[in-house]
């Protein structure tokens, strides 16, 4: 059972809700700040207007300044119904003309001026907004700035700010809910193709490895492609396995039948000479069977590795040398000259070290078994962008007519010769899997050449990969 995480829908809904909630909080806070500024601006206008009206009522009489705060100024301020009002008017000498003597000016420094100065403060414990502005008076015995300071408590401002914030919060909440609903619907719609894919796969016959045919949006189409690619490889692999099993069964049955017949003969043979000959043939058959089995295993291994192993940089020179060493038996029944001729110090390709070793060994093995009366050469060289591995022997080789067939499983160049036809098949498979080619030729000196060509790794890549490998 696949471990089941929280549902995609639930997770998305959660994330969206959190984001929207945080957004709403931030917006609400911003709305509160903005609303306070807006409320201050609105009521500051009234406050400054009222202060100006009071300043307008300043007049001079000989030797003194008079002020007559107009009722309209207070009625202006009374628009903020419940707010307290404090004010103070001072003459050029700083003497209080009217209002609250202990009300502080909003002007903290600088000289008095016409421009209203606004400030926040407290008066008798009430938080207030204060404006101070000046009016220059000049007359007999009077010359200087009269200052009007007007303060109002903040109830109406707070009320307005609260009201504005509440309204914007309602808007924000409304939009958030709308966005949430829309996003959840969108997610639901977006996830629908996934359900279609799931349904299509679930409804499938287990043996059906055909690609899934579903029209899906681009994002989901990638998933469908991946599934199809996977299905394709699975089908290939299953097909290969089925073929292999059928072939292998067939291959093993034939020598076993022959072996059984020979053992039967052996059991009835009384002549010692014949028995000895028969025994030799049985041994030969068993050896052949052993070879066949090991080749089948080798083939299976190579196929398996082709599917499983990650390809990496492989230097052909040491691999080929090792394979040669492994493939040439310590004692041969013939006197063969074995030659290893690397033309380059190293030839790096991208591949699977084990499979490549195996195929070179296989090719060498094949050469020894089928020909090579006196010479076996393993030549490595570079041909343009390709690495060339040549297995050369002085035997008869494979007739050119059979070159196409020998790479198919269980077809031997010479049907009578001992051994199985799997050797070159494996070689062909692996070379193909590495993006290379398998070729046969008869060289001018009459030697038979099996050549494996692999694409070389690019120089730079090659170096870095190798160091990486070493590390």
């Amino acid at each position, binding site marked *: 059972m696949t471990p089941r995480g929280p549902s995609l829908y639930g997770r998305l809904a959660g994330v969206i809700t959190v984001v929207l909630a945080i957004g709403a909080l931030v917006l609400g806070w911003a709305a509160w700040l903005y609303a306070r500024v807006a409320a201050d601006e609105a009521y500051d206008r009234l406050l400054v207007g009222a202060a100006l009206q009071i300043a307008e009522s300043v007049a001079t009489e000989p030797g003194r300044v*008079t*002020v*007559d705060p107009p*009722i309209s100024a*207070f009625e202006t301020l*009374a628009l903020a119904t*419940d707010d307290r*009002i404090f004010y103070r008017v001072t003459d050029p000498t700083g003497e209080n003309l*009217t209002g609250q003597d202990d009300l502080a000016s909003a002007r903290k420094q600088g000289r008095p001026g016409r421009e209203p100065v606004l400030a926040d403060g407290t008066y008798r414990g009430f938080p207030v907004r204060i404006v101070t502005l000046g009016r220059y008076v000049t007359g007999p015995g009077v010359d200087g700035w009269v200052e009007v300071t007007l303060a109002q408590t903040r109830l109406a401002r707070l009320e307005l700010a609260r009201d504005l914030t509440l309204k914007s919060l309602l808007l924000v909440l409304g939009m958030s809910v709308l966005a949430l609903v829309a996003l959840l619907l969108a997610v639901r719609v977006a996830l629908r193709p996934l359900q279609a894919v799931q349904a299509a796969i679930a409804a499938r016959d287990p043996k059906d490895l055909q690609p899934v045919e579903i029209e899906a949006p681009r994002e989901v189409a990638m998933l469908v492609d991946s599934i199809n690619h996977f299905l394709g490889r699975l089908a290939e692999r299953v097909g290969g396995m089925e073929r292999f099993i059928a072939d292998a069964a067939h291959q093993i049955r034939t020598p076993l039948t022959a072996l059984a017949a020979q053992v039967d003969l052996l059991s009835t043979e009384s002549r010692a000479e014949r028995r000895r000959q028969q025994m030799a043939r049985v041994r030969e058959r068993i050896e052949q069977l052993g070879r066949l089995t090991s080749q089948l295993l080798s083939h299976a291994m190579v196929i398996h590795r082709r599917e499983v192993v990650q390809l990496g940089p492989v230097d052909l020179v040491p691999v080929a040398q090792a394979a040669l060493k492994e493939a040439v038996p310590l004692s041969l029944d013939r006197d063969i000259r074995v030659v290893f001729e690397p033309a380059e110090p190293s030839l790096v390709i991208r591949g699977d070290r084990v499979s490549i070793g195996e195929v070179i060994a296989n090719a060498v093995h094949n050469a020894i078994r089928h020909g090579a009366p006196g010479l076996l050469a393993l030549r490595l060289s570079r041909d343009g962008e390709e690495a060339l591995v040549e297995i050369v022997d002085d035997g008869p080789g494979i007739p050119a007519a059979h070159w196409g067939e020998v790479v198919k499983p269980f077809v031997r160049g010479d049907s009578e010769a001992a051994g199985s036809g799997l050797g070159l098949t494996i070689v062909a498979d692996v070379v193909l899997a590495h993006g290379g080619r398998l070729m046969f030729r008869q060289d001018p000196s009459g030697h038979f050449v099996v050549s494996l060509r692999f694409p070389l790794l690019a120089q730079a890549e090659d170096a870095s990969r190798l160091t990486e490998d070493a590390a």
Partner: protein
Amino acid sequence: MRRALILIAACLLAAPIRAQDALTTFPAPGTERQVLTLDTATDLAAFEPLIRDFQRIAPDVTIRYREFVTNALFEQARGECLAERPGADLVITSSVDHLVVLSNAGCALAHRSPETLAAPGWTRWRDEVFGFTFEPAVIVYNRALLKPEEVPRTRLDLIELMREQPARFSGRIGGYDIARSGIGYLFAAFDARNALIYGRLIEGFGRMRIITRCCSSDLIEELGKGELFIGYNILGSYAYSAQKAGAPIGIVIPHDYVLALSRGVMIPARTRQPDLAKRFLDYLLSQRGQRVVQQEAFFFGLNGSVPDGVEAPPGGLTSGMLRPIVIGPGLLPTQDRAKRERFLREWQNALQGAEPRRLQ
């Protein structure tokens, strides 16, 4: 000691006027559990029915009723507030501008109840100052001395009357001394605000050598005796009360515009018994209290009802001609030091400066 000093000061200030700080105690009809102190600038005769009725629903409350003139009451309440000293449990005055100044300075306790919220918007401010009566400024005249067709029904009528018969009315017109009477000052200030003819009116008063008095009762008494022919801007409630008691006076609610005051009540922030004070306040504003206000104490209703025997404008008291003295920050400038000084000076000048014009 301090309070005694203030009382002495108040007495000195108002020495020529009337007895100050007249304390009347209404003992609890039942067992006394609480004492409520009312500092008022209201005639006891008018207010007594309210006290009696309240004691019917709160028989365990003894009520101390201290009577001041408006300005003395203002100083008393302000002194208590600035000294942060508990004093009265309720302050009741017709000079609502005083209460607005006190509330603005943070001297009042807020109270919000179904009763306070039911009151008309112009009669309350900040849930601290409440008006509980409706008292128009009226023209009062002596019925024996004025022929019915002579009775002035508008301010213009009054100006005409004074212009046409200066000899007859000289020294026979009465009004408040606005320097001493808070309500007189308030009405004058609102007249100045409302009427383009205010200047002519004052000028006329000056020519007639208007007789000024501190208090409604003095004016009404002299009107009843025939020493005064016409009284201008007299509190309608007191005038009606006198008329009801048999004084031979007629009452006209001006037909051009009507100044109307709602007598104010406020709970001082330092009261010792806020709950009882709120209870009394709620009573004043309740239906039961308002019924007493209208039928026994102040006679006019907040709904604009006019008692029989008062000559009202033909269409009744419509909002178009009604100029209520709105309880709110708009009353602050009337108590502005500079403004008050200037207004009083101009008033004095107008009354005295008018004399040379007689030469015309």
